[in-house]
């Protein structure tokens, strides 16, 4: 697509200089090519060589989707507790603090209200950087409250998923977030309010097997890994290698599991169009 040509040339001209630290360079996880960070940042973190959509944080995602300055966060005060005093090699409490130190939040979800090309919507964004975007009690509660706000204000809901799945440290509490969020979405559906699910790399396990696959419209980013079971587990179970492109967005589209694959450059318009089409 256009992105390849637009940025392919400038990429070639860029060569690393000694003054630039290695962290200024990122490697595309898909095609392995090396890219200058500042350059790829300008291109919405899309690989200019292969079009792979690299993982981005909440700040970048909001800048991409929400009208500038329109996002108001809700429920930022929700904090995880350690309901079963879980300790593996580290305690859950320590892992949460590590996540906070790394990310500045106590949750893998940021939720709130914004406008998207002037269309108001409830927006929930997962952050893979906080404990692998895992689904715990706080995340489930934030989603239910976003659904409730959408019901009150008669708005659409967008959830941007990026998650390894359930948060093991909360054990069955985490598992129950799957039914909790799905039950809330049933209410949203009964009220005929649109829910758009955006699947980004990666969306797996308990997140994939609950709200992420329940969208009226399901959009995936190019190349995103989406599935129920992890690839390692499947490989072990079937005892052979997986086919090329298995569980990638393009595979899902071909199998009829998602509605569309949308590039970041088109994302905002697609989302606001969908909201307008489904909730005129």
């Amino acid at each position, binding site marked *: 697509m256009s992105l390849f040509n637009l940025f392919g040339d400038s990429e070639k001209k860029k060569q690393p200089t000694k003054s630039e630290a290695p962290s200024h360079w990122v490697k595309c996880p898909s095609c392995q090519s090396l890219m200058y960070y500042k350059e790829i940042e300008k291109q919405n973190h899309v690989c200019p060589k292969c079009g792979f959509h690299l993982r981005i944080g909440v700040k970048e995602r909001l800048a991409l989707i929400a009208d500038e300055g329109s996002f108001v966060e809700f429920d930022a*005060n*929700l*904090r*995880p*507790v350690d*309901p*079963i005093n*879980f*300790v*593996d*090699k580290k305690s859950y409490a320590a892992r949460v603090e590590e996540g906070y130190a790394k990310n500045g939040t106590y949750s893998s979800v940021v939720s709130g209200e914004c406008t998207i090309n002037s269309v108001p919507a409830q927006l929930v964004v997962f952050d893979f950087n906080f404990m692998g975007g895992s689904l*715990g*009690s*706080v995340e*489930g*509660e934030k989603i*239910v409250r976003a659904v409730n706000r959408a019901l009150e204000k008669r708005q659409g809901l967008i959830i941007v998923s990026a998650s390894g799945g*359930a948060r*093991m440290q*909360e*054990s*069955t*509490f*985490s*598992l*129950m*977030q*799957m*039914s*909790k969020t*799905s*039950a*809330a*979405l*049933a*209410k949203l*559906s*009964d009220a005929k309010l649109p829910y758009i699910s955006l699947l980004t790399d990666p969306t797996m*396990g*308990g997140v*994939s*097997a*609950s*709200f*992420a*696959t*329940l969208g009226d419209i399901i959009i995936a980013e190019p190349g995103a890994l*989406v*599935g*129920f*079971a*992890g690839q390692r*587990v*499947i490989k072990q*179970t*079937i005892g052979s290698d997986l086919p090329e492109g*298995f*569980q990638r967005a393009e595979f899902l589209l071909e*199998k009829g*599991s998602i509605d569309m694959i949308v590039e970041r450059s088109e994302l905002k318009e697609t989302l606001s169009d969908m909201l307008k089409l489904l909730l005129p």
Partner: protein
Amino acid sequence: MATYLDFEQNIRQIQEEIISAEVRYDHHAVEILKQDLAKEVEKTYSNLSPYQELQLARHADRPYALDYINLLLDKKYEIHGDRHFRDDLSIICYLGTIGEERVMVIGEQKGRGTKNKLKRNFGMPHPEGYRKALRAAKMAEKFNIPVLMLIDTPGAYPGLGAEERNQSEAIARNLLELSNLNTITVSVVIGEGGSGGALAIGVADRLAMMRYSVFSVISPEGCSAILWNDPSKVEAATKALKITSSDLKELDLIDDVVDEPLIGAHRDKEGAAIALKTYFMNSVNELKTLSDAERLEKRYNRLVGMGRFSE
């Protein structure tokens, strides 16, 4: 041949002695041995570790869904297939009666012996299994029939076809649809409650567990491999995950523990079936006192009330 776990060896010995005393017509010895057995059962099963309970939940002689269906239902007809792809034999659906009550039973079914294990895919459903379950549940809703769901799976099947046919969506759809299915629903974990694959038939007015069943977000084996990076830490993971019926009742994540005989369903199938039947019938009768709207609201509030956090 009955299977005995390590911690059941004393019970095995006494049971064998009872059999030989019965052969000798030594009624006196039988009486004494039976008292000994009761004491031994009390001693062994009152202090089980979570890992021992996990072993019981997976015990080869533990009744499976079909065993309960045969013991519980008076009239019964199996209904097959998701109407789209195929009949997944790791989920079974039976329409029938328990006494005067009509019932739809949906169960995850493991197999006994190599041939049956393969036929039942070790109790690991594909998407079409969950879709069959939903079809049966929707039919029950249409004709106002109470639903009994029996959970017993290591997890939803992780395979190529399962992913191609959207395992995620099949599970998610059940979670959503069962959350407001307008008929009486009761789910009981009878053995292994493995993650989303179990929860897919675990959304109901009441969620209960048999005494020696487990319910977990991930298998203790998987958890020890991932979080401990050491597959040998299964016992520690089992304990840490809090997966036993008593733990989950204490955490208020399930509604009830079904009063399975202390010696275990694997030694007393009939006793376990009676306990399950009593629980189900009592639940149905209690739930019948609520209006549809009341019952659905109660179910919804229970579902969205799950989770612990601070604010």
